[in-house]
């Protein structure tokens, strides 16, 4: 699992690559905590995210809550159909701006 953080215009883009299972979620937790401090728009690029467990979803939600406190926003980009269906199940589609 790998997280690549880049900056695009006014947004910070974090590209999540690989399987975000429970173990991976534990591993990337420190990196993700940093992203809580991002001002403005945070884009989570899921183009290469193949799998997400509930731990991963927790990270997404944590980020989203942190952004909401600061008035920023979180955009989820390019989620696969499988993940989209997970988002749908969990009501995440309503919480996130999906691109």
């Amino acid at each position, binding site marked *: 699992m790998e997280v690549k953080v880049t900056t695009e215009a006014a947004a910070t883009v974090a590209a999540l690559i690989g399987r975000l*299972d429970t*173990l991976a979620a534990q591993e990337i937790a420190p990196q993700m905590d940093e992203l809580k401090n991002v001002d403005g728009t945070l884009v989570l690029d899921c183009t290469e995210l193949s799998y997400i*467990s*509930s731990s991963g979803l927790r990270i997404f939600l944590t980020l989203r809550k942190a952004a909401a406190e600061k008035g920023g926003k979180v955009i989820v980009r390019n989620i696969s159909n*499988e993940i989209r269906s*997970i988002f749908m199940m969990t*009501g995440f589609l309503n919480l996130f701006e999906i691109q």
Partner: protein
Amino acid sequence: MNNLFRYISRSISRKLSLWIVLFAAIIFNIALGFMFTQSLKAVREEAISRATKELDNTVLRVNNILEMVEIATDNTDWLVVRHLHAPDSMFSYSRAILQNNPKLNGCSIAFEPYFFKDRGKYFSAYSYNDGETIHTTQEGNDHYEYFYMDWYQTVKLLDRPGWSEPFVDVNPDVHTSTEIIASYSKPIKGKDGSYIGTIATDISLGWLSETISAVKPYPNSYSIMLGEGGTFFVHPDTTKLFYQTIFTPTLEKPDPDLSDLGHAMLRGEDGMKELEVDGVDSYVFYKPLGETGWSVAIVCPESDIFGGYNRLRHMVAFIVVIGLILMLLAFSRIISSELKPLRSLADQTDTIARGNFSEVLPEENRSDEIGRLSHSFAGMQKSLIRYVEELKETTATKASIESELKVARDIQLSMLPHIFPPFPERKDIDLYASMIPAKEVGGDLFDFFLRDEKLYLCIGDVSGKGAPAAMLMAVTHSLFRAASAHESDPSVIVHHINETVCLDNTANMFVTLFLGVLDLPSGHLRYCNAGHDCPLLYNGGMKALDCLPNLPIGVLADMKYTTQECTLTAGTTLFMYTDGLTEAMNADHEQFGQERVDALFAGCGEKGMTPRQILDSFWEGVHGFVRDAEQSDDLTMLAISYTPNPFATVLSETITLNCDLARVPELNDFIFSICEKLKLDPTVTGQVQLAVEEAVVNVMNYAYPDRGKRGFVTVKAMSDGHELRFVVIDSGIPFDPTAKEKADTTLSLEERPIGGLGIYLVRELMDSINYERVDNRNILMMIKNI
């Protein structure tokens, strides 16, 4: 006759007056009877004393005269004896007697033939008084041989003085006049005491006849005198005089009474006899006449003696009869008029009975029973009117309550499962249940639902019936649903229900409840009984499920309920019911009974009936028993047949991991390889991977708080080609993930908790999940149809 009885019995006045008159008649009869018997005695005694007295007086008078004759004769006797030497002096003696005693008719001084040798055969100095002069003559001659005459011979033969039988002196010149004559004769004795002749004195008995005939103590009484031969010498019927004796009638027709009387009189007795004389009932008083041998009697017709008495009696009887009739009429009228208000009351009542409540009753100002009856009737009528009004209101109210209750009933019934079969898609379970309330709404309940692979079911009975029971039933039902939403341990569920029910149980009602949770894959049945009838089991044989009785719900708040368990084998039928079944009563108050239930269920089991058929046959059985009797209690039945699905394993692999999240990729690989083998498409594979990972991670994170990574979790994957099963097993603390509340995915960002999505995802991704804690292990099964 019957008509008469009916006529009398139809009216109180007739009956009552008849009774009164009947009693009066009896009392009159007794009183008058006594009075008449006594007066009869008195009259009789009076008659006897009166007649006897008259008779005594008469006899005394007659005797005086007869004695006079006797004395006169006696006085002459000694003169005769002293002058036997001078036969001619006899003429003067016989004459002297008549001169001295004008009442005497004649006197003979007669001697035995040839007594005076010089006078020849006949010598009888005879004087007689023809009323004017006294004639004296010698009367014996060849044509009148006086010594053969009774007057002469009798005293000679008897050697004592005496009276002859009276005889009739016929005067040939005066044919119409006859005179009764009697002679007093006395033997004349010579100096040597030998009999020499008879001195006889005649007296006409005309005066005697008159004297005796004059004795008439009663208007129709008469006197008779009998001679010594019974001949009548005094009798009002002159044809009988001299010609008949008292015995004459008995020669033709025996008459013992008359004979007795005659004999008594001839014996010279003194007395009284009652007999029929010449066809008339009479009292005959008789008495002898001195030494004559004659007897005098007074014949008094009974009708004379008792004439006044009988007239009085008839008069009184007549008055009594008339009086009784008048009494009957009067009483009948009085009672009838007294009872008139009753009759009109009866008419009014009829009118009222026909529904005319407002009919005005007659005003009754009497203070007696009838008045009171009228008053109470009027009161009753008022009450009736009021009551009818109230009844109308009540009926209206009741109708509205009834319609409300009907709605309640619909609600209640709709609250319970009512679509059968409830799980048409499932092959392992068939279930049928019904609840028939005795009233509109009932206190029985049953419920069941499937959660995961578990069938939650309950059957219960609230104490009491009707609306209050229905309320508690609804409460219990809701509590069951609520408590079993996240709990699969029956005792815990029951405990929850009990706690809540007890909380506000001011009505002190209680519920018996049987609650079970059947794990369908394994057939594992866990149950808790709260005072309910034990369900019946059939699996080749019938038996009752072993149940602890426990206390019903609502009795004791901190009651500890215990879960019992057993395993149902394939083909088992479970039958649950409320006591409305065993206690169903017929018209004779006989209960349907446990024996019948057992026998019937055993029969159903033998025939392999489906739950629906079982309930139908129970219905039939109960109806056949109860027939027309009103249903006494709510009746609820629930039957389940259990046949677990067969599972032909084509794949079975197991992996055991310690509780280290680092082992998760291994798990993923294991699952991936399984999916590969089953050639599942990637989406399904992804879903299965995620679900299993979430379940296992859940165990890893929470199952062993004390052991941490040293705990183990085993994942077993099985497939029969149709479904893929994963069983996650751990021996950590009991934890039922299925009991977790379902995550709410609709909440806003701010409200959304961070966690809680894992189990939610498992449930969403798999077709079914099921948790079981067996042998201190948590067993979570997840099934995905492939």
